[in-house]
């Protein structure tokens, strides 16, 4: 597609369940980023991919969070044993390379009950 696509757009799940969030970046973009945005807050960086490797995982808040990227394209962010504080909008962005402006998807709104 023309833009960054994220799915699902909304996800409601019970505390303790695992969730997978998907990001399909713009074709040809080698860099991919995950951010978390809590209500009324700015963006919190989670992880950066260049191709299939993740040279910067410094923003992942705990070992319950992991991400992978396959084929230099689609990425999946997995949160295990979800907690209520994980409730947020998870945004994915891609760029042509790590130095170019980022293009964002519309995010996945995650609600943990």
């Amino acid at each position, binding site marked *: 597609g023309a833009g960054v696509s994220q799915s699902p757009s909304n996800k409601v799940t019970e505390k303790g369940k695992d969730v997978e969030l998907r990001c399909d970046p713009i074709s040809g973009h080698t860099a991919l980023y995950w951010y978390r945005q809590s209500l009324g807050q*700015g963006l919190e960086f989670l992880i950066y991919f260049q191709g299939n490797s993740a040279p910067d995982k410094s923003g992942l808040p705990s070992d319950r969070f992991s991400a992978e990227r396959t084929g230099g394209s689609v990425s999946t962010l997995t949160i295990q044993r979800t907690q209520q504080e994980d409730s947020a909008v998870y945004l994915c962005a891609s760029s042509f390379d790590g130095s170019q402006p980022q293009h964002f998807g519309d995010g996945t709104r995650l609600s943990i009950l």
Partner: protein
Amino acid sequence: SQQGEEDPQALSIQEGENATMNCSYKTSINNLQWYRQNSGRGLVHLILIRSNEREKHSGRLRVTLDTSKKSSSLLITASRAADTASYFCATQKNSGYSTLTFGKGTMLLVSP
């Protein structure tokens, strides 16, 4: 931690007026970027200004950067109701890859 801090947190103006938002940051940067976010949507890149630039224009947008004061401003001239959104500044420390660090944003409301 937040690198950029925008002010004001919220701004309400009438259509046709100018809107000015400010951003301050703490450490040296390679560039500063402004993004817009409409409610329930992702961020849209507006403009990038490098540390060796002082002013940049794009349509109705004017961005200034003062590296000695570690501050930037975004001016939207002749605002429209469609400009209603949250505006974020983001800083990047290095050329090439480095993390974009976002502020908490300014919420702009433009009334018809």
